[in-house]
């Protein structure tokens, strides 16, 4: 296969470039079908370039300002991530075919290409360049909704991601000044200042606890296609960066465990189903972060395999909710129900996504998540393992049951809309096919992971694993039916739940407004004092220097003579007494 596609002259060309260049070309093309063709063609070209290298290594070196930028590091870790990024870019292009928005086309391509570029980056400067490019290009997918809420959420998103980039650059510069190295590899450590800043930069993009709210704030406000595109790249790029730089960093195990658990509680009572998926995304990232923290070959395989299948099934779920939003105009759970009667194909695809993320046997989540859980158990992190099993039941709750149940079943609201557009169905169908294909032919996935030889020793379809997983899932579904029967399951309600973003959207915002008002008042008070003093001084000066002032009065010559004599006497006295 590799030999078939090998083109020597393109051996050093990163697959990121055709996607980015296609985005730049799309910017000057007014003809919508041509832009759409580019959106589909660019990922195919990227895929050909992905197959092109005959060996692993670092290619595409660019000399710039005394630095050597490594734009194409092709190894086992970048291979799997870049492949799924390319697949996601193609699915996104297909899903957005019906849209006529030049800015979305352009930025979608540049964002996808930047994600690919970051994955292939061999040094921190190249990573920084693509890191920031993902931030700047992706914000337009949020602003694309063209309303005040998305505008403000986009600003918050941009601010937080630019901060992430600044921390990355600061950390890289500090590290380079200490070690002379710009290498983006496993030599990064949180024990140094530079390494710690880079870690936080990755953590922001990875939506670590307390740094996570940009995700739930921005993604639900993005455009229909934008949310699908966003769900694939930013956070998984951060997971890749952690896997590349901080594999085996123990604190990641605990950070990841918290990430798997807390979003579950928010997702349970969230009314906006795209926001539920955003919390769900956060929860899934936790599994990957735990795997990276454990750091064994099996665990890293688990993180990579999980990222691969997650991008596909999460995109599928976002696509299904996007189709609902496109047809119904809302994804509020309180306003949906019974849509399977109008959108049967979308329902079917959503159910496949739900089964995959819930890790039902024969679906992709089952074969991927199992690697991480096995690795955690093997390393005797029992408490963390229990949290992950808890979170697995939580995943079933919010993504396996809540999303399809409240959108497509539950109480029929009498909504009779048209099925999703054909291109949306094709994109969902392709993603659904991959979910099933990878779940059954898991060997394909296991050959792609960073340590395929370690994965070959793992067999996901054992009696113990299937029975254990089915117990977990069926008991959780039984719990759902029990809670519904006894009216102990919360209704979908028109409400919002404040999260940690309250700190900066309300508290800090309020504090800043208060401080601004205080400064304003202080300024006014100081201004009053100054102007009062100026006024008094003006009056005084007028009294002294004006034509009618004291200095302009006629002074009797006798008085002047007396003053002059007195001054002369003082001078003489000083001269006499001086040594």
């Amino acid at each position: 296969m590799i030999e078939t596609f090998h083109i020597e002259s393109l051996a050093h060309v990163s697959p990121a470039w055709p996607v980015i260049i296609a985005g730049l070309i799309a910017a000057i093309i007014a003809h919508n079908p041509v832009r759409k063709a580019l959106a589909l063609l660019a990922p195919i070209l990227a895929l050909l370039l992905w197959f092109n290298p005959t060996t692993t290594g670092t290619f595409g070196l660019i000399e710039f300002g005394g630095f050597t930028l490594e734009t194409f590091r092709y190894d086992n870790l970048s291979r799997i991530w870049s492949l799924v990024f390319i697949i996601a870019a193609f699915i996104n292009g297909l899903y957005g075919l019906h849209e006529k928005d030049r800015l979305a086309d352009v930025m979608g391509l540049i964002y996808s290409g930047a994600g690919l570029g970051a994955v292939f980056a061999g040094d921190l400067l190249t990573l920084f360049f693509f890191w920031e490019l993902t931030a700047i290009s992706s914000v337009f997918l949020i602003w694309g909704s063209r309303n005040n809420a998305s505008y403000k959420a986009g600003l918050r998103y941009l601010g937080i991601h630019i901060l992430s980039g600044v921390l990355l650059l600061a950390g890289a510069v500090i590290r380079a000044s200490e070690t002379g190295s710009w290498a983006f590899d496993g030599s990064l450590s949180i024990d140094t200042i530079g390494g710690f800043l880079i870690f936080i930069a990755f953590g922001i993009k990875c939506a670590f606890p307390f740094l996570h709210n940009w995700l739930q704030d921005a993604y639900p406000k993005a455009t229909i296609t934008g949310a699908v595109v966003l769900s694939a790249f930013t956070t998984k790029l951060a997971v890749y960066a952690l896997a590349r730089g901080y594999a085996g960093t123990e604190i990641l195990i605990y950070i990841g465990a918290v990430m798997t658990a807390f979003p579950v509680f928010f997702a349970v009572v969230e009314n906006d189903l795209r926001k539920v998926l955003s919390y769900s995304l956060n929860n899934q990232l936790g599994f990957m972060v735990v795997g990276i923290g454990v750091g064994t070959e099996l665990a890293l395989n688990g993180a990579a395999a999980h990222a691969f299948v997650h991008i596909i099934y999460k995109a599928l779920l976002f696509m299904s909710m996007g189709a609902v939003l496109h047809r119904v105009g809302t994804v509020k759970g309180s306003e949906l129900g019974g849509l399977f009667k109008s959108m049967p194909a979308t329902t079917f695809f959503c159910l496949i996504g739900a089964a995959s993320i819930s890790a039902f046997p024969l679906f992709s989540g089952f074969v991927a998540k199992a690697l991480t859980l096995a690795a955690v158990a093997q390393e005797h992190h029992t408490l963390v393992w229990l949290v992950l099993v808890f979170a697995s039941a939580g995943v079933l709750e919010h993504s396996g049951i809540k999303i399809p149940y409240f959108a497509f079943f539950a109480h029929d609201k009498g909504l009779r809309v048209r099925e999703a557009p054909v291109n949306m169905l094709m994109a969902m169908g392709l993603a659904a096919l991959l979910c099933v294909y990878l779940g059954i032919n898991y060997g394909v996935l296991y050959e792609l992971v960073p340590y395929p030889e370690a994965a070959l020793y793992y067999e996901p379809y054992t009696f113990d694993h299937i029975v254990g997983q089915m117990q977990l899932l069926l008991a959780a579904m039984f719990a759902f039916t029990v809670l519904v029967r006894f009216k102990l399951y919360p209704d979908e309600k028109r409400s919002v739940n404040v999260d940690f973003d309250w700190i900066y959207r309300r508290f800090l915002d309020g504090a800043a407004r208060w401080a601004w008002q205080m400064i304003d008042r202080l300024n006014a008070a100081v201004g009053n004092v100054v102007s009062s003093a100026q006024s008094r001084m003006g009056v005084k000066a007028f009294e002294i220097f004006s034509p009618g002032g004291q200095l302009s009065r006629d002074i009797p010559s006798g008085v002047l003579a007396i003053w002059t004599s007195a001054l002369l006497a003082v001078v003489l006295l000083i001269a006499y007494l001086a040594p």
Partner: protein
Amino acid sequence: MSDDHKKNDELIHPVARPFLWLDAKWLKSSMIWIFGILTVAFVAADIFHPRHEYVPLAELTGFYAWWGFGAFVLAVMIGWIGVRGVLGREENYWDEEGDND
């Protein structure tokens, strides 16, 4: 089913018509039994074929079923009481800054 729904029934997608039983009351009321019996069946499998796990606790009969049931209920209760009860706000909470979720 309300009159409005009946009026809309002619608009049901042809592909969905063979699956309208999914909305039947008998199915909704039977789900608790279906899942209950299936859960018991898979727990029973443990009795006849004990599982081997890296975590000894997981080798208890029906461990995943107990854990799954408990985790689901706990997640829902914490979400309902803890999150909605404490952190829940009116839908227009963020309106003041013009970006209601």
